[in-house]
């Protein structure tokens, strides 16, 4: 024991770090901040360390070459001892990190911690969020499979829409005219050197400010932040109702950090690593690329926006959101901190969460995508064929053969791009059906050039049978009226 303290003293004589470390550890924090709500920042830092360690381990095997990356990932999954587990830890760690950073941000927002004097801590935090998302996207590229390849194409298509600099931005992003070796290499440099370097710097700055300015006190409804008096009030609070950070508050951080690491490890163990999916070979076109979990909402949004709104939304949307986040502490730097008296803040969070959740959910079954194999794979339910004429059955064949089923479902089977046709005859008359099939419209292609008159007749005859048993098909009231008043007009 004596020896250890002697060695310790020897080092501290030279390092002189014991006193500042003790000062940091024992700095007083308001007692009520020793809460389970205040553990997300340290949890994000913990997962970041996990990502650093597992990332370095993966880099020992991974080959950042478009020709070999995929094989090196296979090798990690199948040949290298526990390679699959390290990949799984890194992949799940990435998902956890994005989630925890978002939760941390929501907590900070709802607790008004971005207000004076912590404006810059928030702004640095916004950059940390952007870098975390940058790591998530570039990491997905390094998992160089089909999803990564086509995901890069999507990124390039988005970048290309920037006015004036679009084509240059694409070449800069891809490292050349196409997605190839240079593309992967530069995303490797971004993912392994550039963004982590900036992350480490910004995390240090973020932490330094948390220590210097003190942790945000528990917001009390009615206790308003005023620039003139805040510092005095905060120091008074820590003096009268404060406790040393270590050990008073830190034990909850420690427990939560360990719990999160355990959760990442459990997911890694149970679910295993992410991909890689198919080989990144652009000649394999039978693929439906999808982004990773945290970008699924964007994938859904890009499917649902009207075409004319898409480019403005892609170019202006992110700028507006980021500017809003950066300006937030200046727009409301003082005043009420408690979420109990900030209904707009709470509603904003709810709105954003519900929107992102809905879009993510929608991307799970992509109602906007044609079902590529529905025409050849999905059977026509028996009830739609029972007692039909030869012409109507011929129409059912046309319906399948011309791939109408890829976008229209019958009996809940088939695409959802267009409306389900189980009861289309109730909605559209014969003339309207013919017009819709031949001319298209309302987001449906025109089939006039692809159907012979006989095929159209058969198809429409089949569609006219699609109505519930007790419900009559739609009829042209105008036509009937005229036929009633002028019976002779009928042929």
């Amino acid at each position, binding site marked *: 024991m004596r020896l250890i303290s002697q060695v310790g003293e020897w080092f501290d004589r030279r390092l002189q770090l014991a006193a500042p470390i003790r000062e940091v550890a024992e700095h007083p924090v308001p007692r009520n901040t020793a809460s389970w709500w205040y553990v997300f920042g340290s949890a994000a830092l913990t997962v970041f360390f996990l990502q650093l360690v597992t990332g370095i381990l993966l880099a020992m095997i991974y080959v950042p070459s478009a020709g070999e990356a995929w094989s090196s990932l296979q090798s990690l999954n199948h040949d290298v001892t526990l390679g699959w587990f390290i990949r799984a830890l890194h992949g799940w760690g990435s998902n956890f990190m994005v989630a925890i950073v978002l939760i941390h941000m929501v907590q900070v927002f709802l607790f008004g911690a971005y207000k004076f004097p912590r404006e810059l801590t928030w702004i640095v935090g916004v950059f940390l969020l952007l870098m975390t998302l940058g790591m998530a996207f570039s990491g997905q590229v390094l998992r160089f499979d089909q999803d990564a390849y086509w995901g890069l*194409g999507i990124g390039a*298509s988005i970048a290309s829409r920037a006015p004036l600099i679009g084509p240059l931005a694409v070449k800069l992003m891809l490292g050349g*005219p196409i997605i190839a070796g240079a593309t992967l290499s530069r995303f490797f440099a971004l993912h392994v050197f550039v963004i982590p370097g900036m992350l480490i710097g910004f995390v240090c700055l973020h932490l330094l400010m948390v220590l210097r300015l003190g942790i945000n006190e528990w917001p009390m409804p009615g206790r308003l932040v005023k620039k003139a008096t805040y510092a005095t009030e905060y120091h008074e609070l820590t003096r009268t109702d404060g406790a040393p950070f270590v050990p008073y508050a830190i034990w909850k951080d420690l427990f939560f950090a360990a719990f999160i690491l355990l959760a990442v490890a459990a997911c890694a163990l149970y679910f295993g690593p992410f991909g890689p999916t198919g080989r990144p070979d652009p000649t394999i076109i039978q693929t439906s690329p999808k982004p990773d979990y945290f970008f699924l909402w964007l994938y859904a949004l890009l499917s649902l926006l009207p075409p004319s709104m898409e480019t403005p939304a892609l170019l202006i949307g992110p700028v507006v959101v980021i500017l809003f986040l950066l300006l937030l502490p200046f727009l409301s730097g003082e005043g009420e901190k408690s979420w109990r008296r900030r209904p707009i803040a709470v509603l904003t969070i709810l709105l954003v969460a519900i929107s992102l959740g809905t879009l993510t959910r929608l991307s799970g079954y992509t109602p906007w995508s044609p079902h590529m194999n529905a025409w050849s794979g999905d059977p026509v339910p028996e009830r739609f064929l029972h007692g039909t004429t030869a012409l109507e059955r011929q129409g059912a064949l046309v319906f399948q053969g011309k791939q109408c089923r890829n976008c229209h479902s019958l009996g809940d089977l088939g695409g959802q791009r267009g409306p389900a046709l189980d009861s289309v005859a109730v909605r559209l008359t014969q003339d309207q059906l013919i017009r819709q099939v031949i001319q298209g419209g309302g987001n449906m292609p025109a089939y006039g050039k692809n159907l012979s008159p006989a095929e159209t007749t058969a198809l429409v005859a089949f569609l006219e049978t699609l109505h519930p048993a007790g419900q009559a098909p739609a009829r042209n009231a105008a036509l009937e009226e005229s036929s009633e008043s002028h019976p002779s007009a009928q042929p």
Partner: protein
Amino acid sequence: MSTENAVSRRGLFMKLGILFNGLVATALAAPIVGFVLSSITRGRANAYLAWVPLGSVNEFPEGETRLATFRNPNVTPTDGKTVETACWVRRVEGDHFQVFAINCAHLGCPVRWFPQSGLFMCPCHGGAYYRDGSRASGPPERGLFEYPSKIENGLVTIQAGELPTPGPSAALVGKKPPCA
């Protein structure tokens, strides 16, 4: 002249030192920026704009659309399979060809051809195109990208070294491509 305003010998040296570093940094910045932007500037060296063959004219029956693959003329040692690209070749009649990029004009996903319905469909966000490449429905703002093509010594050749992106032509909202 008061002593407060006087430039000391060491102060002058420090300023000269900063100036010297500034000059060196500027001199080094030129090659660094040049390197970073090389992917843009090298593009103008147009090695990738060479014409590449897709196969003999006879491989493509008249009135049909077939998948063809080609190798990008611009290959680096680490590219692997990524320089192999697919495209859709439509032989309208005789020597009249249309060669479409595989990339959807929305966000670049690979479109598939359905000869039965005469449509190209995209699996990502549901874009659809007619057989002549014009937009049929879905989120794309324009028709499929068409590579410049010509027949040379009985071979269908195209100029296709670049990843087609909707960028510059996305502004042509509502304007139909020439093939529509």
